[in-house]
């Protein structure tokens, strides 16, 4: 009965936050703009590349009508265009491949060569070509093999360079952490501002006459968190839908995993930071002071974000950034970056997620104490040091 009541009260607080914010014009407009931005970021490259330039496939030893047909067909089947280009020998073909003139090289009946095989495997016209060329080889080599076509045969794909995450995966990682960072700081400051408003307008005393501080705090971060989650989930959905609709290679394999990991760390990051923002908001007496108290809360995020550029554009992250990937305050930004850059295996991502979740519990306990202790204090702004010291003795 008591728990029931307690949950009901918390939910009442949460639903007020949702109703109040979801119906504001600012929220609706920013949500729509964000979703359009995601859709464009995913679909535009695929649409532009698909229409403007067909994949050039070099054929070592000259083209035949059969091979040209296979290449054209592979392009169409993968939703784009591919044309065959005759190459005198393998060395010339590989040189053209290195300087970007060719998308892939077909050595008939032997293999397909690309510049670099993405970690998730090849996709698009090259993948289709590998299958079709493999079938063609089979049919030529083995009499009556056409009957066995249903089994599917693929020509091996070899990379000139060691396998690595594609640039698209890294850029998706960057895009993902920008979204994580923006959502955490935007919604985090909304929490702090909302609590600053309750404190400065003194409505908090009326609230606390019927609601416990912890219910008020949890209700607030839950309500605002659900809004943030809705926005994050709809962005991921738009990413996937726009990706498939436009035939973008971003929705395949590794890149999609980066987006999903980003979504998980978005939730964990919000959970970790939401109570800290709430505690920061409870320290001020005037709403205009909120910006200065949330600054220290955001510092770890800013640090991880700033350093992430060194990982995105470099081969291999340094040890310091690896450490950041496992610390709860920086993991929500650092770990998706490390994963996108191919610097950590999936199991380390899971460990970082568990550590962050544990850190969330620890942070929430401290934050609730600071909040309960500070929310009714008027007068000058309370420093974090003072609030922590007093919350220990309280």
């Amino acid at each position, binding site marked *: 009965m008591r728990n029931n*009541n307690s949950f009901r009260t918390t939910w*009442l*607080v949460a639903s007020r936050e949702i109703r*109040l914010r979801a119906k504001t014009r600012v929220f609706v407009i920013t949500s729509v703009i964000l979703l359009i931005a995601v859709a464009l970021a995913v679909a535009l490259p695929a649409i532009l590349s698909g229409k403007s330039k067909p994949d050039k496939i070099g054929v070592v030893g000259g083209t035949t009508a059969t091979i040209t047909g296979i290449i054209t067909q592979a392009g169409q089947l993968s939703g784009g265009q591919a044309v065959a280009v005759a190459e005198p020998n393998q060395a010339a073909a590989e040189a053209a491949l290195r300087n970007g003139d060719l998308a892939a090289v077909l050595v008939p009946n032997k293999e397909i060569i690309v510049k670099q095989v993405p970690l998730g495997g090849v996709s698009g016209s090259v993948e289709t070509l590998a299958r079709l060329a493999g079938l063609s080889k089979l049919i030529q080599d083995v009499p009556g093999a056409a009957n066995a076509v249903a089994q599917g045969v693929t020509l091996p794909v070899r990379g000139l360079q060691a396998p690595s995450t594609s640039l698209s995966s890294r850029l998706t990682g960057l895009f993902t952490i920008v979204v994580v960072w923006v959502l955490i700081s935007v919604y985090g400051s909304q929490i702090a501002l909302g609590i600053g408003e*309750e404190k400065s307008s*003194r409505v908090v*005393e009326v609230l*606390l006459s*019927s609601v416990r501080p912890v219910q008020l705090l949890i209700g607030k971060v839950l309500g605002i968190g659900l809004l943030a989650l809705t926005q994050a989930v709809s962005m991921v959905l738009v990413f996937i839908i726009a990706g498939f609709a436009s035939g973008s290679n971003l929705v395949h394999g590794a890149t999609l995993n980066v987006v999903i990991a980003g979504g998980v760390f978005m939730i964990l990051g919000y959970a970790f930071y939401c109570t800290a923002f709430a505690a920061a908001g409870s320290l001020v007496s005037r709403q205009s002071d909120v910006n200065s108290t949330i600054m220290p809360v955001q510092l770890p995020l800013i640090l991880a974000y700033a350093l992430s550029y060194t990982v995105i554009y470099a081969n291999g992250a340094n040890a310091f950034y690896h450490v950041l990937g496992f610390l709860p305050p920086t993991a929500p930004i650092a770990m998706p970056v490390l994963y996108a850059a191919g610097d950590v295996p999936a199991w380390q991502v899971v460990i970082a997620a568990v550590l962050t979740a544990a850190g969330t519990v620890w942070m929430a306990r401290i934050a609730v104490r600071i909040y309960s202790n500070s929310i009714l204090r008027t*007068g000058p702004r309370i420093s974090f040091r003072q609030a922590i010291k007093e919350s220990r003795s309280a």
Partner: protein
Amino acid sequence: MELEIDGLRRRYGTVTALDELTFDVPAGQVFGFLGPNGAGKTTTMRAIFGVTALDAGEIRWRGKPVDEAARRTFGYMPEERGLYPAMELFDQVEYFARLHGMDGPSAAKAAWHWIDRLGLSGRGRTRIDSLSHGNQQRAQLAVALVHDPELLVLDEPFSGLDPGGIDDMSAILKERAAAGVTVLFSSHQLDLVEDICEAVAIIYRGRLVVSGPVADLRRGDRARLAVRVAGDTAAAWSAGLDSATGTVDAVRADGTAEISITAGGDAQQILDLARAAGAVEHFAYEDRSLSEVFRQATGASVGQAEAEHAAATKATRVATGAGR
């Protein structure tokens, strides 16, 4: 007794806010909780709602220590009024009704009822920060009343009200008390509220000074005479008064002497003495004001007590950096 305040103690650093404060509030009355600023009224009221922790003592409601369930049946109007500035009036009132446990439909019905009842009809869809100051006060009262509380606690409900507003507020408090609600309100303006409440507790420095029905306190244990002799603005005639008959408490600006009659003393002897000095313009039994009751019990006027508190607050604020 419905509400029992029993031995409350609370210290803030070196400042003692409540010092063994004890009094009872009966049901169905408008009960005044009076004292100068800084006496501990707000701390006591916050303690009733568990907003302030106590060092010692207990608050009981209908014989049981106040808990969360009991508090849900209480209504509170804090001294520092507060509502969500950007929320519409109806949403706000309905929200607080639901926080006190009402379901959706009855919360909405009660919200509209109190909006109309407090003269805010037509303002239900107005944002709080667009309401006039007086209407914000009414909105605050609506929030305290909307869930039909069994105990109504109002901190300085009359401060900042014009005379019309004071009449409206006291009418509502009396109506609620008549409906069986226990009404406890605080004020530092002792004389302003002596006609509004039936019983009071007066506190000073966190301690109870006196409590009881207003009529009894104002009458006191010695009857009070007010006597004025024409032309004698210093009440020089009263110098001849025998302390076995009565003592002069004060002389007003117009020369009226306020005299407490000694037990067994004879008012007629006082009249004779005055007549011997000149024409008696005024001779009447009077009740004391509550601020005089306070002065007699504490030796300090309400004004002195508040000035003393203001000076002390300034000093401790500098020392602790805290507001209260």
